[in-house]
């Protein structure tokens, strides 16, 4: 029968991994909870790695996002340039095809208004 102190030590070993290892070494007893502790460590390690990975990914995305604003601005600037060119061409076409302009050119070229009514 185990003494009271031994029982307390054993109970402590069950709750503390390092103490458990020492207890196992001292007692040379095969404890059934050993494999459970290793799994816990692996889970913790995986979680830590995942967290680190996610943080890194967030950093990468944030860095990319900061340059997307610049890309967006350049695209919008290009759209603006094209719209300005379109507007510019539209009013130039309107200017050269205005009747005021055409009639002046026609007069210079010697065109005259018909004296008689010409109908089909």
């Amino acid at each position, binding site marked *: 029968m185990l003494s009271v102190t031994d029982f307390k030590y054993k109970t402590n070993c069950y709750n503390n991994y390092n103490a458990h290892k020492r207890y196992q070494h001292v007692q040379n007893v095969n404890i059934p909870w050993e494999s459970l502790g290793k799994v816990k460590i692996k889970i913790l390690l995986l979680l830590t790695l995942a967290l680190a990975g996610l943080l890194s990914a967030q950093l990468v995305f944030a860095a990319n996002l900061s340059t997307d604003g610049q890309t967006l601005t350049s695209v919008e600037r290009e759209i603006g340039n094209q719209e300005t060119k379109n507007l510019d061409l539209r009013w130039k076409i309107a200017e050269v095809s205005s009747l*005021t302009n055409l009639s002046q050119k026609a007069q210079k070229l010697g065109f005259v208004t018909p004296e008689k009514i010409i109908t089909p």
Partner: protein
Amino acid sequence: MSRLKVLLIIFILIAVTILARLFYWQFLSDVEKRTISDINPDEIPAPRGEILSRDSYPLATNQEAYLIYATPKVIKDPAGAAKKLAPLLIPEKFSTISASANPDLISQKEQAVEAQQKNIMSKISNNDLYWVLLKRKITAQAKSQIESFDIAGLGFERDDKRYYPEASMAAQLLGFVGSDKFGNDTGYFGLEGYYNSILRGKAGHGANTLDPKGYPILTSKFKTTPPQKGSSLITTIDRPIQFIVEDALEKAVEKYGAKDGTVVILDPKTGHVVAMATYPSYNPATFSEYEPGLYKNPAVADTYEPGSTFKVVTMSSALDLNLVTPTTKCTTCSGPREIGGYEISTWNKKYYPNSTMTDVIAHSDNVGMTFVSEKLGLDRLYSAITKFGFGKLTGIDLEEESPGVVRNKPDWHQIDIATASFGQGLAVTPIQIVQAVGAIANGGKLISPKIVSATVTNGKVENYPQDQGTQVISQKAATQMTEMMVGAVDNGEAKAFKPKGYRIAGKTGTAQVPLAGHYDPNKTIASFVGFAPAQNPKFVMLVRFTEPTSSQFGSETAAPTFFTIARELFNYYGIPADH
């Protein structure tokens, strides 16, 4: 050194780096200069919709332009900058080709440059001002020239302006774009004013979170609303006809020495306004350089006594009610008449006893019209006047329309019934007269005149419904009145000017101008209203001159102009002669 201490040092270094960077952005970087360049970085102005003619040619469109501002404390040489900028910031009228050949404008230009230089100098030398506006809506060319000066402390913002390719053509019809009290573009007068709410579009909103270089930060709050371009208007204006009319009107106003002239042409079957012109006119692009009196459209805003052109309204109502026929003889036409203590006489003091109603119209016989008004009586005459749309708005889609003046029925006396029958004692607008005569041309159906036939929003065309009209006189009465008006043209004072072979229905009008309770003997409003071809009218037209000096009569001023324009319209529409 323990590992913990190394870690602590690393953390401290990172923190110091972050603080240093923050200090740089807060105090050392160029953020301040960038921020002032954005007047309202959150708002993206919407392009204004265009106003198109019937053939989709832009009568009003937009042109690239800029606002120029200065940051006085950044400008190192204010005097030099003002000297360079002034010639580029003077009114546009000095920059035209014709201005360079006009000695008056050349001397005015020098004064304008000098004044502008002083103005700029006062603004940019005031270091108490953080930001100062130098000029709005300068052209892209002017901007390029200013940029080539490489003056620090100047900046530009996009500030597009309205462009009217045909310059002053249809100016009173189109209106112009100015600024409201917040500096936003707003339409005034004409179509620009009437349709301002749909032409102006809706401003968009950009990203309000920007990095120090001015690029948007795409955070979860990043949301932009693109501006919605204003809808464009497709009008019923026929551009070549408008051009023909403006050309003929300008020549006629100068030829007859008139104060001003107005021409309105409608399609009587649809009520669509084909052309509407006034001379003198103004350029809507540089409206501020003209007298404000020119802004309103006389075709819808001016009221005048219609004179003899109104006889067709009185006569057609009497025909409709079968009170007279074209062959009814006037039993009171042998001489002047006295009604209510006033003498009624003819315009040329010639009298035609037993003349028919057709003759009364052909001779423009005032005494004959009193015979008709007696047949009608007050109730029926008043009803006819209101049925033809006088005394109320026609519903044309233009600002500043006047309803004219028709006194309330209880205020009418015996003399008023007589004088109203030949167009005195009431005030009408040119568009009301055209609308009324258009009803005669359209088989008795009165149609509200309209200028915009459709709108275009994001490429989608929405047609406006056409007014179905109201039958104000019978088809028979309209046909009889048409024949009487054809007779008036063929046998009237203006028959010599009429194009040969065409049946044109028309009526002259010479109204005296009321002045301080009496009529001015030397001032008249001369007009001619008619339609053609009489049997199947393609157009109804009014020509009106205010105070012509070469002749006071409509038959010698407005009628020849009507026929000159009609001749061009026959060519344009390809309408062959009737015989």
